[in-house]
């Protein structure tokens, strides 16, 4: 479904990604893990067109989207749930969700998706008239994911969803992500919580200083020396 081939990205002239290669197949949950500053977020932003690679290419369902505009990439079904959530604070919960449905065609369709998101996150339904900025961190993350689901993603990319959440909520969040996978969503997850991410992932990639240095099945990676040493402190 998604093929990222040797992309290289510069941020204001400074190399941020040297060579990132990865692949996500239909129905998979793929985790990309690595230390802070390894370039995980940059890789997702390159896929969604927010930053432009200087070389390499990105194919989505066979279509070259390497230098396409963000709005068009999103309309193809590549949805990016940004780091630190970026919800629209002054707007209500429901307005935030409806913005996710900006690209939808019919009113009925929008209602259907809204109900789906409310079933998944009943808390959002309870608070649908509240301003986004009044929600707690965990609720804001639900809103950010819910808003992403409203776009009807073919590929859902989650950027550090556990960042800043209490440990209890982190566990809950990873349950939700597994649930989304069971519902059939294809997910590319970027995380610093290496263990939890690899536990639920089908496959994983390890990013180090802007390069994908290792890949494999989630469980295998967890057992590998490189992960044990670098991330789990074993």
């Amino acid at each position, binding site marked *: 479904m998604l093929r990222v081939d040797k992309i290289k990205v510069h941020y204001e002239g400074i190399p941020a990604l040297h060579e990132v290669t990865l692949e996500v197949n239909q129905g998979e949950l793929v985790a990309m893990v690595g230390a802070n500053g390894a370039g995980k977020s940059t890789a997702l932003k390159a896929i*969604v067109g*927010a930053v432009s690679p200087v070389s390499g290419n990105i194919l989505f369902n066979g279509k070259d989207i390497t230098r396409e505009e*963000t*709005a068009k990439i*999103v*309309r193809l079904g590549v*949805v*990016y*749930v*940004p780091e630190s959530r*970026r*919800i*629209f*604070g*002054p*707007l209500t919960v429901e*307005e935030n969700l*409806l*913005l*996710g449905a*900006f*690209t939808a065609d019919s009113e009925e369709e929008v209602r259907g998706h809204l109900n789906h998101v409310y079933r998944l996150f009943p808390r959002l339904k309870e608070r649908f008239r509240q301003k986004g900025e009044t929600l707690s961190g965990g609720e804001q993350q639900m809103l950010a994911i819910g*808003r992403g689901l409203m*776009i009807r993603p073919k590929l859902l990319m989650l950027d550090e969803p556990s960042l800043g959440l209490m440990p209890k909520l982190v566990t809950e969040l990873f349950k939700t992500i597994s649930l989304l996978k069971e519902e059939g969503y294809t997910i590319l997850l970027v995380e610093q919580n290496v263990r939890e991410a690899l536990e639920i992932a089908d496959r994983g990639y390890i990013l180090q200083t802007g390069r994908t240095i290792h890949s494999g099945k989630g469980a295998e990676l967890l057992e590998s020396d490189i992960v044990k040493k670098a991330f789990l402190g074993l």
Partner: protein
Amino acid sequence: MELAVQLIVYGILMGLVFSLIALGLSLIFGVMNIVNFAHGEFMMVGMYIAYLLSTFLPLDPLLSLPFAAGAGYLLGVVSYRLLIHHILRGPMVAQLFGTFGLMLFLRYLAMYIFTPDVRSVKQGILVGKTLSMGWINVDASKVFSAGVCVLAFAAVYWMIYRTKLGRALRATSIDSEAAKYMGIDTKGMNALAWGIGGATVALAGALLAHFYYVTPTVGMLFTLIAFATVALGGFGSIVGAFIAGVLIGLIMVVSGQFVSELKFSFIYIVYFLVVVFRPRGLFGW
């Protein structure tokens, strides 16, 4: 007593026009944090459209309103696509000079086409008519203009707060990067803000032409009044622009009654007071 009521009525009527003029400036600032120095020149274009259509066709200046709004919309969108879009990436100073240059360009283009002569709209059902309500006399054109301004303001407000397009516009103004991730064409939203800004201010210009002289340099004064209005109401606040416009109209008319030469100075005195005591404006966040 009669004088006081008369002044207040005039102040409010004039103020409603100021509100509509300030609306676009506030909207454009709210969506992309850029100050449009050419705002008054967009208004000037609306004034000339009312003047031309009523003098040479001759069409009643009232019928020129949709043409003025349409021309203002186009002017706004074209300015955005050809100029503003490119300077948004530049530093703040480049943006300032960019719209300042646009102001000079439009002003001297008008100077070339129309000469610096002062013109006025002489014919029209409302021109020169007064309405008497009891012991208050008011210009029919001012009452009508104020009414149209309220309607136009309400229409834009409804569009921004009650429609899907308006929701996308608000999202863009809050966080344009996040708006992009929603699949919103944020450049299109910027262009829309410029279009609405141009349309509303040109419409205000065509209304103003009923009772205000038309010259190529008329814009600057109104740009400055609009700046004060937007700062008073709070940058980016639509409701603030409306209320501040009315306040400014009242200040100008009432103070002008006593010291006519200082009526614009009074606007700025109030503006300075607001800047000192409440820098974010009455309704700013």
